[in-house]
């Protein structure tokens, strides 16, 4: 349980600190000729998908202990 929660938090932190800002920087820089109109709902969905997704993926190794 500790490893699952720890890995999930590590994945979320990795997404929040490294992956997500880098992705946003790239995506917004890519569309520099347009004016962004980012809605809070769309942004929240993207944020949750990336952060929870990365957390879930990084906690995959501990899931394997269920099925060993």
């Amino acid at each position, binding site marked *: 349980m500790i490893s699952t929660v720890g890995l999930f938090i590590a994945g979320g932190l990795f997404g929040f600190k490294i992956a997500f800002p880098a992705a946003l920087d790239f995506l917004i820089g890519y569309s520099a000729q347009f004016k962004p109109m980012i809605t809070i709902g769309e942004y*929240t969905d993207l944020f949750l998908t990336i952060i929870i997704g990365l957390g879930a993926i990084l906690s995959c190794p501990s899931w394997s202990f269920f099925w060993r």
Partner: protein
Amino acid sequence: MPDTDSGTTTDTQSREDLLRQMSFLEHLEELRKRLIYSVLSVVVGFFACYAFAEKIYGLMQAPILTALRNHHMSDSLVYLSPTEPFNLYIKISFLAGVFLPARSSSIKFGCSFRPAFTAMRSATSFPS
């Protein structure tokens, strides 16, 4: 999972033995009890997090505000329907309420399946 909410290994063993001896209906009753506790912990977490929803969202939108500022764009997000900010805060509070007591709720819920996992593990593992 190697860790449980019951403390020592002997406690875990006796608890597993007790769970194995229970009948099907007793297992269902145990599952119902644990489901109710899980839902209650999420509800308590939701109300606790609703008070901090604005702070949580401030933390969440920090990456995009930084990215927008770096590219010299307007650093404010928009909403298209009047209910969107309210729904957003509800959604954030609910999700934070799910993840805040995640340890207690998932253990409470997961422990009711422990005998099944243990049985499956011993049935599928190779003989040593």
